[in-house]
């Protein structure tokens, strides 16, 4: 019995393993797959070109994309095509990360956010506005007015394709 009380006494002075969520949050692992983020280039243009390969790769059919054409007067992304509608149904998503793998421009990334809650099915659909990351410092929001003949490539030239 004393032995048991000893254990209790010892553990009283140990550092607790529980953390006070949500006041305290644990950092996620490098490969954690949380809520999707649609990335931007440094100048603020969206990386997403509306190719819908993520939707094609999605095993849960959670992604819906509609695309439209960029112009230099109203440019959302480099190249000709951008996503005019981008929706992910978070109720369907299984966070497998296939979308990330399929993306030719590394536009969609499964981020760190795991705090997804909604009270209706309609709320579970995350639209493009909700998914797009904020404009980086020094960048412009989209649509941008851009000089002609600069942003002609949809898919950036990758220096090292294995990266």
């Amino acid at each position: 019995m004393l032995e048991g009380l000893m254990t209790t006494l010892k553990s009283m002075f140990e550092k607790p393993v529980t953390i006070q969520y949500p006041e305290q949050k644990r950092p996620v692992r490098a490969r954690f797959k949380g809520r999707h983020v649609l990335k931007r280039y440094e100048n603020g243009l969206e990386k997403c070109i509306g190719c819908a390969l993520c939707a094609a790769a999605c095993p849960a059919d959670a992604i819906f994309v509609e695309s439209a054409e960029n112009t230099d007067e109203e440019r959302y992304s480099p190249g000709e095509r951008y996503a005019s509608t981008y929706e992910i149904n978070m109720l369907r998503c299984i966070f497998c990360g296939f979308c990330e793998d399929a993306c030719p421009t590394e536009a969609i990334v499964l981020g760190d956010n795991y705090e997804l809650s909604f009270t209706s099915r309609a709320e579970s659909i995350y639209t493009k506005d909700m998914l797009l990351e904020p404009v980086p410092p020094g960048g412009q929001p989209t649509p941008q007015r851009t000089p002609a003949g600069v942003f002609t490539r949809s898919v950036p030239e990758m220096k090292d394709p294995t990266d």
Partner: protein
Amino acid sequence: MVVKMVSLTIDGRAVAVPAGTLVVDAAKKAGIDIPVFCYHPKLDPVGMCRQCLVEIGRPLIDRATNQFILDADGKPKISFGPKLETACTTPVSEGMVVVTDSDKVVAARKDVLEFILTSHPLDCPICDKGGECPLQNLTMRYGPPVSRFLFDEKMHLAKHVPLGELIYLDRERCIQCGRCVRFQSELVDDPVIGFSQRGRALQIVTFSNPGFDSIWSGNTTDICPVGALTTADFRFGARPWEMNASASICNHCAVGCNLTYNVRREAKAGGKTVIKRVMPRQNEMVNEIWLCDKGRLAYHYMESDQRLEQPLVRKGGELVPAGWDEALNLVTEKLRSAGNRMVMLVGGRLSNEDLFNLGELTEAQGGQKLLYSYMGGGDLVSRFAPPKGSNLGELGAGSVVLVVACDLHQEAPLWWLRLKQAVKRGAKLIVASARPTRLDKFATHVVRYAYGEETRTVAAFLPVNVAGAPQVIQSAAKTLTEAEDLIVIYGSDGLYLEESTALARTCAELLLKTNHTGKVNSGLLAAWQNGNLQGGWELGFRTVPDLAERLEKAALVWVAAADPAGDDPALAKAVRRTGFLVVQELFLTETARMADVVFPVLVNAEREGSYTSGERRVQRFYPALPPKGIVPEARPDFAIPALVGEKLGIELEDHSAALVMEHIAAKFAAFAGINYQRLAEVAEQWPPVGGSDLYYGGTSYLNRQGLGVTLSDVLQGESLLNPAPIQTTQRQKPSADALPVYPIQLLYDRGTTILPSALLHERLVQPAVWVHPTTAAEHKLQSKARLIYEGEAVEVAVLLSEQTPPKVALLPRSVGLLGYWLEA
């Protein structure tokens, strides 16, 4: 004609094909794939892309005996050339040995693909062709995984070049196969695009004004083996794999082209399912694998926000929305009191099922079944049309086609294309028309007459009259009398209803007198302006010359899919005076505005049904859009008479189009044995398209939903030429200086179902009369003139056109104008 067969060996498999077949086709028939880019089974081979390289060996022949030299085993010695040969330009020969899977061939294919990809941008993610791209598919199958060429040396060219307002070119993606250029110059005789520069700098350019001025331009996007050519309509619309496909039939002209609607649910359209694009569906008996741009792009009326949404009933002089019950009850009550003083006027946009139900209701009432068309003679077409088994695609040496009063290029584009191809195969073509048409170039005889002389000109071909006829007619008459098979196609170029009825009768007489009836590939065809006018004739509807009078006298007029008031001021007056007007329509047309009750109906993409084409082929269309989609309250046309019939105690099918077809088959002899199962039957067709064969025939859809059934032949004979020759009314010239005005039909008309497609607006016909500059000067016509119709004159714009014959004025139909005379 006996076709000589040639036997050869492809990859160890013995194959027998007709002499003259190309190795690539012979392999395809044996189920062996040889990849191609520039070759297309409907075009002449050029051997530009080198993708089809194979090893070909031929047996050695002893020059002295002209026999094969045999080896020790007694088999012919085969000599293989030192180089690979292009399978697409090499015709088969006896004893040939083809190897398509040796290491040498595999390496060559890989290298050619590596070359082709040296300047291809590989922007598949944003390319509209991605997913149905021959280059993509063949690279995956035969290409190298990596390129040895430097990425930085890729050509960077313009990616957004509008060739016209309909077609966009991406210069980077082009692999210079020339399919589009060859299609335009060889197949459809519109050489408006071509190659500029050479080598790597080779580019497609257009040299017409407006750009890419061709009614066939959409087809180049189908046969383009990469995403270089895309339609403005579908640009970035959706990815090919995201869309569902549904089979349908085009109803814009008499040809009845088979097509496929690609549909998708869309956020942009508020979550509704919409049509994203129209693609051809193979039917080698009808449209092969082509579609004209009108058929491809004029579908936007279906999702127009102008469509009628609920029944309208006139209350206190205004049309106000009402419930179905209220509207149906009102119509039932009026029908009861109208009794047999009822007139049913139907248009050619309705399906066979709609026409049948509307007709049955009318017959039960004892009313009149009238067809709204400015062309007559459909009853003669029923009797004299080419019988079952006829195919314009089979006409060749020995066949003669007479085209009268018809600009087929504008009125039935696919027939024009198929006749042109028939001439290439050796058929003879006689064109009789008052003005130059696009068919003249291919005709063996061109007979020019003055407007108004159509019937007399055809009558001159008759054996009894030919002796006194001019030389060109005599020689043409000889050609057609001697023909093995003769097809006569008549149209309505410059003709009103009575004149075209008379013309049809003379054409039928010509067939009868030259013994060209009841034979396959011989008969009478009419270039109707709508998809199912022939169906109207088959189901007992008739045109009448005194339509206005009948409409005016009727106690109740029921108009379905026609807009007489919008087309003709005299009919508008009659419609206004009629007792009670019921209209079932898609849009609030001029006629619908005058109606007492208006019913909203569904478009063909929202429902099932069938059309009878100008060749009397019954073809089925399927629902592409979900029910309660664009217009939730609307109903199919056939349901409305059935619902009214129910209240009147007339039993009609209101729900299933398939059951209506069974009723049709039971009642009309020509339809006997036709049901929806038979209409859905398919057979293997050449060339193979769809599936993994995209590289071969383009992105046309394989026909899995039915090739259609030709209506049964009706007995023929001289008595069937009744009624007797038709007397046409002479119109009084209002003044000595007045120019006679003749109506013509153009492809891009201003019809209710064309106008909502904004993309076509630049090409639509303008409301103006066409006059030759010299004639205009003689008659002192300025930019405006007075168009006289039934004693009333309206002001109309005058367009000077060199194509117009002298001493007449031409007025395109559907522009909302009508007139017999033109005055300064």
